[in-house]
């Protein structure tokens, strides 16, 4: 469903992605792990073109994009790609001037041109799904971090995306609030939502992932099932990273 070939991205002289290939199947949960600065967030942001790759190609269903340095992707293509993806950010990025339900309705009304009533009932159903139906009229600053992130998940789901992208969704949360967000994500996984998740939560990754990608220094070091990557890898760099993590726990 999603295919990425030979993806390159540099920020000035700094090469962040140095030729990444991967494929995500429909209904699959792919988790990207790796040390800070390995390029995993940049890779994720290429999926919905928040970053424009310098080279390589990206295919999402019928949309196929080839990147060449300096060439612009037509705005219409960018928008239609983004309408098929939803993203959940590390720092939630809810719209602070709208209520929870307003946040979930916004994309439906502005982008998908749904009627207010339709958007409202869909938003309510989604808030109910993330366990926040009773907070529909609260403003973001009245919600805890975990609640904000669950609203953000509902917002990302509201435009009926083909794939949900998570950028370290629990990194900004207090430890006691991590569980409630992970629970929602697991629930979505069970329902067959296609997801790509960047995370530092190894236990969660092992739990939820169909495939794990371990990135280091702009390339994919290892990829496979959680078992293959987390337990059976022979790659010395991968082992070093995994050992350091288990040392922390």
């Amino acid at each position, binding site marked *: 469903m999603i295919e990425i070939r030979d993806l390159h991205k540099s920020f000035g002289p700094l090469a962040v992605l140095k030729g990444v290939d991967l494929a995500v199947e429909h209904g699959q949960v792919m988790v990207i792990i790796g040390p800070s600065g390995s390029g995993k967030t940049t890779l994720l942001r290429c999926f*919905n073109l*928040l970053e424009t790759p310098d080279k390589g190609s990206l295919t999402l269903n019928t949309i196929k994009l080839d990147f060449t340095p300096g060439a612009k992707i037509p*705005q219409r293509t960018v*928008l239609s790609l*983004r*309408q098929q*993806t*939803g*993203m959940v*950010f590390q*720092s939630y*990025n*809810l*719209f*602070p*001037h709208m209520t929870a339900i307003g946040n979930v309705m*916004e*994309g439906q009304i*502005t*982008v*998908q041109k749904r009627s207010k009533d339709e958007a409202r009932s869909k938003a309510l159903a989604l808030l109910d799904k993330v366990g926040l139906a009773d907070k529909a009229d609260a*403003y*973001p*600053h*009245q919600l805890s971090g975990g609640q904000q992130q669950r609203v953000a998940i509902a*917002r*990302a789901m*509201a*435009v009926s995306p083909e794939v949900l992208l998570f950028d370290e969704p629990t990194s900004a949360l207090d430890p006691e609030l991590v569980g409630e967000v992970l629970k929602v994500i697991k629930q979505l996984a069970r329902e067959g939502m296609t997801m790509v998740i960047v995370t530092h939560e190894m236990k969660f990754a092992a739990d939820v992932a169909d495939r794990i990608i371990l990135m280091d220094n702009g390339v994919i070091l290892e990829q496979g099932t959680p078992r293959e990557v987390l337990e059976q890898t022979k790659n010395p760099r991968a082992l070093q990273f995994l050992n350091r993590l288990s040392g922390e726990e």
Partner: protein
Amino acid sequence: MMDDRQIQIFLDSLLPLFKAGVAFTLPLALVSFILGLLLAVITALARLSSWRLPRLIARFYVWVIRGTPLLVQLFIIFYGLPAAGIVLDPFIAAVIGFTLSVGAYSSEIVRAAILSIHKGQWEAAFSVGMSRKQALRRVILPQAARVSVPPLSNSFISLVKDTSLAASITYVEIFRKAQQIVATSYEPLLLYCEAALFYLLFCSVLSALQNYLEKRLDRYSAS
């Protein structure tokens, strides 16, 4: 300190000065401010545009207006333009002058407010499929408006005082009304102080309104 004649002049001038304020100073300030704000938003967006030409035009406009005295601009518009065949009513000339001024100065406020909105807000808007225009209208500008209420209120209060410059192009607002009364009463100290009191009164009311507005907009600012 004040003799009976002065007290009488003071009292007799209250109503004319108040009327000049309500019927001339405030309308001039309000109309110029609203038009000026529109111009400011357009100018700010032009300065943030990814195209070069709008950026250049906006910068040129701000450069010219900020680099020349408002009084000189008003003289050019009212006394200068007739030489080019353009004769304007004092009110219209004043509105043009003050609008241009508000547009230039406030565009910097609006621009700073737009830039102050966290990049994550743009990205969140993009992530649900919004275009730049939609993100600006639905997500960025409403938040920027909230940020710019205090500095814009200050601009408006300054503008109310600056309208006294319109006296020099024969627009009979508070200050010119005071000048007219001085011409017959020969009481400059009394009348100019009385005019100052009216400006103080109007500006105090506006400050109170500003506080009220900021409090009302505070409901989501805790984040």
